[in-house]
């Protein structure tokens, strides 16, 4: 297996907006090593969300190659991409994106459901993940009964439960107060120190500098 968990080779992503073509990402090449804590930074419209979506296999490039864990994702079907998202990537969003009608435990169980684990295994793995983020005592609560920080912890547990190679966090502290945000950032540090690749997408310079490596984007290109 490659020691680069993510490799972008000359990746472009263009959008057609009426008569214009927006080059959200324009010929970007970058590699991220296993176990790195990297932030992708840049102002709004710089292409960082596009890059995150491409790394997370939510989107496919107009041109270029993306390798996740050494596996070329170009030409993959929707179902194959879903499998990569399920197995290799864990998402953490600014707005948490928990399923509101499910309990914390059920939210964390959902990726395991798609992965095909048996009910007993699913439950055990989900409880382990919730313990890891310090929320085992809240597992039967629904998101609307949890604080913002707790919701984000549930989301992190959900992202980690399937033991992915990459944790992708998009402005994970954006909806939290600074104290809670710091706690979440500490949690990311811990997760990274356990050897997992963490990618933080943010426009917040101060936050981005907490990562060990920064990738700066501007107008769809990497700033050196």
């Amino acid at each position: 297996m490659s020691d680069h968990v993510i490799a972008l080779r000359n990746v472009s992503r263009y959008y057609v907006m009426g008569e214009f073509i927006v080059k959200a990402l324009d010929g970007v090449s970058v590699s991220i090593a296993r176990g790195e804590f990297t932030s992708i930074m840049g102002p709004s419209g710089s292409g960082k969300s596009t890059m995150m979506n491409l790394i997370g296999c939510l989107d496919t490039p107009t041109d270029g190659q993306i390798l996740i864990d050494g596996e070329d994702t170009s030409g993959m079907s929707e179902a194959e991409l879903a499998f990569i998202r399920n197995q290799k990537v864990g998402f953490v969003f600014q707005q948490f994106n928990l399923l509101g009608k499910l309990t914390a435990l059920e939210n964390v169980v959902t990726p395991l459901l798609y992965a095909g684990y048996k009910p007993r295994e699913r439950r055990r793995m989900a409880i382990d993940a919730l313990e890891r983020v310090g929320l085992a005592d809240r597992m039967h609560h629904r998101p609307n009964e949890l604080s913002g920080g707790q919701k984000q912890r549930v989301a992190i547990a959900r992202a980690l439960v399937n033991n992915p190679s990459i944790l992708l966090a998009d402005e994970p502290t954006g909806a939290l107060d600074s104290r809670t945000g710091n706690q979440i950032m500490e949690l990311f540090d811990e997760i990274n120190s356990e050897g997992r690749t963490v990618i933080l997408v943010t426009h917040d310079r101060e936050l981005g500098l907490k990562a060990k490596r920064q990738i700066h984007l501007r107008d769809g290109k990497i700033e050196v």
Partner: protein
Amino acid sequence: MVIENVKLAFNAMRGNKMRTALSLLGIVIGVASVVAILTIGDSASQSIKDAIAIGGLDMVTIYPSPGQRNTGIFNEEFSSMLRRDVEGIDVVLPQNSSGGRIRVGQEATDASVVGVLSDYGDALNLEYAEGSFFEAMDNINRRQVAVLGSDVAKELFPDQEATGRYISLFRNQAKNYLVVGVLKSKDPTFNLSYDNSVFIPYNTYGQRFIRTANVGAFVVKVTDGFDTISVSDRITEYLDDIVGTDGYMLFSPATLAEMADQITGTFSTFLALIAAISLVVGGIGIMNIMLVSVAERTREIGVRKAIGASPSVIRGQFLIEALTLTLLGGFLGIVLGSLLSFAVTNLMDWSLHLSYASFILALGFSMFVGVFFGWYPAVKASKLDPIEALNHE
């Protein structure tokens, strides 16, 4: 996965109780009408058949036409001829009858006087309140003995046993027939009312009331294990050859029962088909609510896709939700339809025959409606772009 999806479906339904109830109404009404129509149809048909069956489903009665009086075919030899030539006949019982006045002293009543052989009682499984049927010797010796129907006995001997007493038939002869038995009350059949009949030996009847050797009717009992309808068809074929279609009339309760069954069957199938149209309308309601559900849950679909749900998983989730809805509607419809059938059959005094076939039909159709009308919304959900779905407000 299926269990989780069913749970999710119930979650979604619980979240929008009113909307769910309204969109289920179409399916519920559709299924209820199909079940009610088929069940009521079955019950009606069964009660008609029950009424006809009283006449004896293993009996066929042949009535020679008046024109056949003197052709010499429908005489006593006919019984053995028919038994010899047509397969599946147990006994052929000749029978003559006419209306007459029965007297005991000052009491009188009108009844059918029927001349039959002594094995008539056994062949028709007659039951006795008093005494028994007369014996073969009574017939051979043309004895003046009689078995009374229950009404006749009640009329003439209101407060005492009739057996051992005498009655007079037709003419005002003094007490010349000895009563040997009284029948229990028995439902009337198409050919006669037992309760208002007096049975006397066949030969006695012949000697006393008709001078020719012609027979008024032949009651045919079909051998156990033979199908009455096919035996009656063979008799028809046989008689058509000998005397032509106008030479006789044939009455077969089994044939009538089959006809009644066919008519009610056709009728209720027709009505059920009309009711099935409402199921299609119900299906459109399901499609509507599923489209609303997909639109409302766009963000949820995005999240599920982000954490690894493939298009087929999302499609499955919404299909199962549609199926859960329609099956729930189907179950409620079956309950409602059964209650309706119960009320109607009760009102009509029919026995309730729940049409289990209609339950299966209704559930099958509900499932079909669920898949058919749930497919498009489910596919639509599965094809949503994950990024757009995630950013959906």
